[in-house]
Each structure stands twice: as C-alpha cells, then as structure tokens.
C-alpha cells in the first residue's frame, strides 16, 4: 500500500472501463446511485470501510500466512492449474503472469469471450480507433451498433456529449442507433434516431450499410433509411462507431466487428471515421494489455515448460485447480468452473462461492492505489487509495504465494 498515493479528494472509479475521475468518492451508495447505477452496483458489491475477517481455509479463519502456504501447496501439486477471473490492476496482472509462468498454468480473463470479439477482428484485418477525448471533441455523427452501450457503460454518452465539443458545433451532433431500440442513459439535448434494420440481422445490416457506403448497392436493395445514412456517414467530417463487444453475444460476432472495421477503413479513404470499440470491463483491457506487453499475446495464455503460447479456447473443465482473482466487481464466475477446486484472492464481497481458500485483497482505487487501463486502451490511470482498510494489494498476495511456491520442490 502506498500511503503517498492517498488523495482522498481524487477518486478514479474502478467499476467499469471508463474510469471516470470526475465524481467524488462515494461515501454512500445512495449518492452514487444518482450519478451512475453501475458504480452504485460496484460499490455495494464490495465492502468499503472493511475492517473485518482475514483469510479462510475450508471456511475457518486462519492467519494469512497459513492461507498463503496452503495456496502455494495446492498450486505446486496441481497438474493443470488455471488462473482465472483477473479482475484487477496492472500490478496484480504482472504478479499473476509470473505465478502462471512458474506453475505452468493457463491464464484467462473471465470476460475473455467479449474481449476476443474485438481482438480477433483486430488480428484479422485491423481497423481504425480513437479515444474518448477525440470522440468527445470531434464526433459529428455517432452510430451505436448492436445493443445499448449505456447499459454496460452508463456514463459513456454523458462523457461524450455533455462537455462542449471543441472542433464541432454542439448542435450539429447526431446519434444514430443501429440495432438497439433505445438508450437507457441518453444524454439530454442530443437527438437520437433509430434506423430500422428492416428484418435484417445485425451482420447483414452492417454489411448492407457498408455496401451502400461503397456504392456497391442499388438504393432500393437496402432497407429504408440505409442509403441516406450512408450518405450522411460519407459527408460526416469525423464519425464515430460505438459498440460494446460484451453485447454482441452470438456466434461469429468477431466477423461483425471485422465488417465494422472494414466499413471504417473504407470511409477513411475520403473522410475521417473511427471506432471506440468497448469490450467487457472488470479489468479485461488491463489484463490483456499486460499479457500482451510481457508475452506478445493477448489472453488466454498457456504456460508450460518454459514456453508461453496463445491458447484461444481454454476449457475450465480441464483444470484441476482454479486460482480466481477478483478485486474488481462484475466478474461472472464461469459455469464450467463449478466443481473445480478453487482458491481465491478476492476483495471482501467478491469471493466466489465454495472457494476452499480465500485470501482477501484490496480493490484498486478503493483500498489500494493501482494502475488501470481505460476502455480506449490508451489512457492508463493511477487510481489512488481512498480508504484505510487493512487489506494488502492483490499483487502483494500473489507475490507471496509465488515466493512460497518457489520454496516447494519443482514438479
């Protein structure tokens, strides 16, 4: 814990990838409810002001040291360990990778499937991306594709549309929904239009729109409104495509993202367009960024015998031990992992059910300072500590487990 990083007047919200730093530290959930439901939900999931119980083994309270040893023993004995969850900060991820390397573990983020939709598309054909500030200052036409992005990122449109834009007339901005019926958190003052897909599924709708933009399709062959949308997109000076990969939960969604990126590359031949591709959250971008810079690969990874390899579809059922890391809320525990013996390094309130060993750790940005990567993948924020709870950072716990593993005989 880093005392000097305590800056109670500055709060970086760790509860979704937007990392809002314009809200006061939530003293009460009620206060936060008004600002952002997702933050309120995160806040009530963790126990801030925590002063309570420590580590547990088989339900019994034990010294942290005992739990660490038990965890190290279990890891050293495991033949196919898997490190999962991965909702945490950069330091946690660094320590998790070091431990996975030492133990020959697989390692995967709980929301990897969502992140992979964007990743596979990137690795297929690339794309065009932008960041929050550019989007906020420039976008004159914003097209939201698929579901309601504000369900996962409640303040996204508020942050894009409420501040006065710098390079475009505020009144000239338009928001178009392609696929979603409505927005739960639409900012006031921005006209929202909905384009009816005319019975096309989302992939066909996007492909048709792209064909319209490329002039490959006769006007009458597309649903009403598509041709004029394409015209507006082409005459926009800086357009923005928004989607949340977490919402695109259907087979082949990465191909849809690829189609969206191809649409952008095409539009950029004449004008400027970019995407703000949002993924799942709960630290997925942070986890993938650290994995990529250390190993070259985004997650999931498999370490074995001094080698690391990209392991795109790991199966929890193959694991004989799960080390679940959860110091950010919002992780979904995988159904396939139920029944796998589980050890958890988790913030109080985020322990998975049935974990044999539980070691409590700090929520970055609440009980400890931590680095988190924002949804645009560019800005990393250092979330200061807010609260004096006696909780170690997850990285510290993992580093101690690693040290204990290293005293074990090699498998």
């Amino acid at each position, binding site marked *: 814990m*880093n005392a*000097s*990083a305590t*800056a109670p*007047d500055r709060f*970086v919200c760790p509860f979704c990838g937007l*990392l809002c*730093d*314009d809200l006061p530290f939530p003293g009460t959930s009620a206060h936060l409810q008004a600002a952002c439901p997702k933050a309120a939900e995160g806040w009530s999931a963790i126990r801030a002001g925590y002063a309570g119980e420590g580590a547990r083994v088989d339900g019994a309270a034990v010294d942290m040291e005992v739990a660490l040893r038990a965890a190290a023993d279990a890891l050293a004995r495991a033949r196919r360990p898997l490190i999962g969850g991965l909702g945490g900060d*950069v*330091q946690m991820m*660094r320590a998790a990778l*070091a431990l996975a390397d030492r133990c020959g573990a697989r390692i995967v983020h709980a929301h990897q499937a969502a992140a992979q939709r964007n*990743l596979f598309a*990137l*690795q297929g*054909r*690339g*794309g065009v*991306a*932008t*960041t*929050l*500030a*550019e989007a906020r*200052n420039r976008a004159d036409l914003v097209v939201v594709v698929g579901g309601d992005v504000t369900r996962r990122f409640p303040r996204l449109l508020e942050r894009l549309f409420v501040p006065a834009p710098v*390079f475009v007339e505020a009144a000239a901005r338009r928001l178009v929904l392609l696929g979603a019926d409505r927005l739960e958190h639409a900012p006031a003052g921005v006209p929202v239009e909905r384009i009816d897909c005319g019975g096309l599924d989302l992939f066909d709708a996007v492909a048709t729109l792209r064909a319209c933009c490329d002039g490959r399709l006769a006007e009458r062959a597309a649903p009403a409104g598509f041709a004029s949308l394409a015209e507006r997109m082409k005459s926009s*000076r*800086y357009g923005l495509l928004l989607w949340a990969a977490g919402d695109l939960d259907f087979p082949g969604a990465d191909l849809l993202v690829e189609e969206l990126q191809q649409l952008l*590359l095409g539009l*950029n031949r004449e*004008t*400027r367009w*970019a995407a703000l591709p949002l993924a799942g959250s709960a630290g997925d971008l942070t986890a*993938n*960024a*650290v994995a*990529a*810079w*250390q*190993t*070259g*690969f*985004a997650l999931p990874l498999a370490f074995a015998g*001094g*080698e*690391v*390899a*990209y392991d795109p579809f790991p199966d929890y059922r193959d694991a004989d031990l799960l080390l679940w890391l959860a110091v950010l809320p919002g992780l979904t525990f995988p159904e396939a992992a139920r029944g796998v013996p589980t050890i958890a390094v988790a913030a109080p309130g985020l322990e998975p059910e049935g974990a044999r060993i539980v070691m409590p750790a700090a929520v970055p940005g609440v009980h400890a*300072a931590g*680095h988190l*990567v924002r949804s*645009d*993948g*560019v*800005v*990393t*924020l*250092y979330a*200061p500590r807010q609260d004096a709870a006696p909780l170690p950072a997850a990285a510290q716990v993992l580093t101690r487990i690693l040290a204990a593993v290293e005293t074990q005989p090699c498998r």
Partner: protein
Amino acid sequence: MPLTRLKGGRIVDPANGVDAVADLCFADGRIVAPPAGAAAREIDCTGMVLMAGGIDLHTHIGGGKVNIARTLLPEDHAPLHLESDIPLRSACGHAATPTLAAGYRYAQMGYTACFEPAMLPTNARQAHLEMGDTPIVDHGAYAMLGSDDFLLRLLAAEAPQAKIDDYVAWTLSATQAMGIKVVNPGGISAFKFNRRAFDLDDAHPHYGVTPRRILQALARAVANLGVPHPLHVHASNLGAAGNLATTLATMAAVEGLPLHLTHIQFHSYGTEGEFKFSSGAAQIAEAVNRLRNVSIDIGQIMFGQTVTCSGDSMAQQRNVGHATPKKTLLMDIECDAGCGVVPFRYRDQSYVNALQWAIGLELFLLVEDPWRIVLTTDHPNGAPFTSYPHLIRLLCDKAFRDEQFARLHPAARSMSLLPSLKREYSLAEIAVVTRAAPARLLGLADRGQLGAGAAADIAAYREQADREAMFAAPAWVFKDGVEVVREGRIQAAPQGATHVVRPEYDRAIERELAGFFGSHMTQAFAGFAIGDEELCEACNHGGRLHVHAWCRRA
C-alpha cells in the same frame, strides 16, 4: 562489491581516446583505475574486445502502439529459447518484441540501455509500465509533442517562447521523460482534420501554424531548457519519394539549433529514375557533414518480416495498401497524437525496398563524423534490433557488403553508389555509433565510455573476423558491475534504471493546463503527472531513477 579485474583485453573506448590492450577494473558498479595487486575476481579477457555497454537511442520498446503491434501479430511470436543459468520468465517474440524478450535479447547482445523514442504524454504511464517490465537494460523515453492541441493553441495564439519552454518542461516532468520528440510536426493533428499530406510550410487546417514554426518552437525550448538531447525529429513526409527536399529544409529550419533527425533513411528519397524513386543519401550526407548542429540515426532496413509502428498516422494511412499481412490499425489519440501500425515485409527483389537498404548503408558510409550518427533500425520499423550484428558486419566488411548487394533487385543496384564506397568501419567507429555517440547525444556522462568513474556497463566480445558472429554473442556482459551475461547465457536479470530530465519551469503554466484539461481532455489534470513513487511501482520497486541535472539557461 569487491574489485573485478578484466585482464588483458583490448579496450576500445573512443570517448576517452583509448584503443589498447590493458586491464579494466570495476568495483561497486563503477569503473576504477586498475590498482596494483590482486582483485577479488580476475577474468581473463585475452583475445577479447572490451566496450562500454551498447546504447540504443531509438527503439520502440514500450507504449501503446508497440502493444497494438504485438497484439495485431500473434503469428509473429515464436517461442524464444533463451540460454540462461537462472530461471527466466518465458519469452517469445520477433518483430514486435515483448518487454521480457527485449530486455533479455538486448543484454545478450551487449546492450545495456534503450530509449523509447515516442512516448505520448497521455500514454506515458503505460510506456513506463512496459519499460519497467523490460529487464536488465536502463531505459528512458522521449515525450512526443508537436501535434498536441495545447502546443498548437499556444503557437496559434503566438504565445511567447518562455511559455512554450514552460510547457515543454512541464511535459518532461509530468511524463518522466528524457527528451522531446516531434513526429511529422502538426501532421498527426492535421490528419484528424482529414489532411492527407502536410509539408514544412503548409498551414495547419485549424490552427494555421506550420510545421516549420512547430519545429522552431520545440527546438528552441529544448535548447533553452538545457535538455541534453537535441530535439528528436521524425520529419514531415516520411517514406515519400522526393522527401529529401523536406529533410534538407527541416535541417535549415532550426537555424543552427541542435537537432537530431531520426531514421533519416526513411527521409532521404529522391524522384529520379524510371520508378521515380531514388537515393538522396549523397545530398543528405553532404548536409549532415556541413551542419555541425545536426545528428542522425539511420533506421536501416533489413529484408524480412517486421511491423512498422509509428506515431505518424498520416503517413501510415498512405501505407494501408502495403500491409503484409493485410491488416492495419490507425488511431487518433486524445488531443495528443496518433499512431499507425502496419505489418511489412521488406523484399530484396522489390526495387524500392532494395534501394532503401542501400540508402541506409550509403548514409552510414558517407557521413564522416561518427559522433553524429547512431546505429539504429528504428526497431521494429526497419528491422528488429536483433539484426544489429548483421548490420555491423555490413559496415565493417566491404566484401560481405558487396555479396549482399549483388542479390538486390537489378534496377536498384544500378541506382546505388554503394559499390563505389570503400569505407569499412573500424571497431572504434562501431563503438562510437553504438555507444559513445548515443551516450553523448543523450547527455549520459557516465555511460558509453569506460573511464574511471563511469558505470560498469561493459561488453566483452571475442574478437573475430566475422563481425556478425562477434557482436551477436559477447563472452561477458556486466550491467552496473553485475554479471548479466556469460558466453551468451543470462546470469542475472536486475531491474534497469529509468533516466529522466527535469528542467525547472514557471508553475503558472499548470493553471492554464488545468483549464485545458477541463475544456479538452477526459481525465483530471490533478491525476495526470507521474510521481516518483508511482514510477518506482512501474519499475517493480527494483529500479533506480537517474535524474540528469542541469540548470535552466537564462
């Protein structure tokens, strides 16, 4: 640490004018004058050439665009089986080298310091976190300015130079940087306004300022602040046929102020010949030879697969069609800059690529003063840094060079004067362009040389006629006196230090910046600057911070 004596090697230390067989001693991480009597440890270096640890002053080792490149190319990362006598972390990689592999591989080549040349201020945290995960080597970064809205606004408002100096100094401190780089001055911003080309005297579509003005303001600020490293310039018109004229004009634009032109190979193209693409090396070298304020690094290309990752989104948009494999990522970034990542395969049977290869070597051989030229491939843009030993052989061995030249596209051969250049680099010249010159250009007084008091960053190479083999695998490498490599095998992987500069400035600029963050940005100004403790955390709590001190000049 007790005294270590490296006995009987040939010390090639051009910074101190030394090229002689002698003992080299160090204790507590520093070189000491050889004392009489026995040392605690004696190492026989007979037949070896001892040089200071190598210093790469332009290598893309950390930060957003490199990480995009890594992610974009899973097919690029073969497992690396690194020779080691200690447990290492598993590593893999080739072109877009991951941090662990980069640190290990640099050390195995005798390099002990690496500088990331393109750290975007809004991405500085990530860059430091990545460099912190790059083992063994010291590191530092140049903060990228010149397409950032704050500077462009200052220039559009004709702010006084003192204010620009303050902003530059604040940027250096806030981002924990070692220097300032400008990439396609103003052009990355102009691309956000849909401009596709931007030459030295073009007016910015929104701010009206020209690249010439941006260059002058930044070069002046760097000089006024006493930052040791000259303004690091990636000039306008990267990669475009005929850009030689822009490059010459860029040299003239700074009116005698110190200027470092990076990866100049990519900026030395004429428009002659059947394919309207020719070598401008002779004209560029003539200008560099004449202008004592100018230093360069080459950005040599090598044939094979690599990935280009540049802050120059405008130039990279032009390259989308050349991507191999066919994927490209372009990005606009946070009122700051942008980037473009385009995988690329340089082919010796491509006329343009073959000539690029020859142009780089022509420049190496035509620039007379080795103290103003640094060996780089602009890793990974021209080639991965692991090709340095091969490049050294090309410089040292005319016969080998001719052999390689004979394989090139015939039309490219007919357009290059390379065969007529008889020069072969001496070992002392290699020591200059790979350590002494970059140390001097960066203001690293105690690196890049082996005088008493210098850091004990030492590489001992077994002397061999085949310079590629010689420089690929040093017999010994010491980092701050710690034995990190022996016979190519890693012995220790300490955390390297971070090098930064911190000029003073008038803090009034921070009020203006706070206002700008409110009106333009999406994070609070209060949390923007990277503190020392945070940097320490980024460096896994194991590194050191080298603050290069100087006073602000009047």
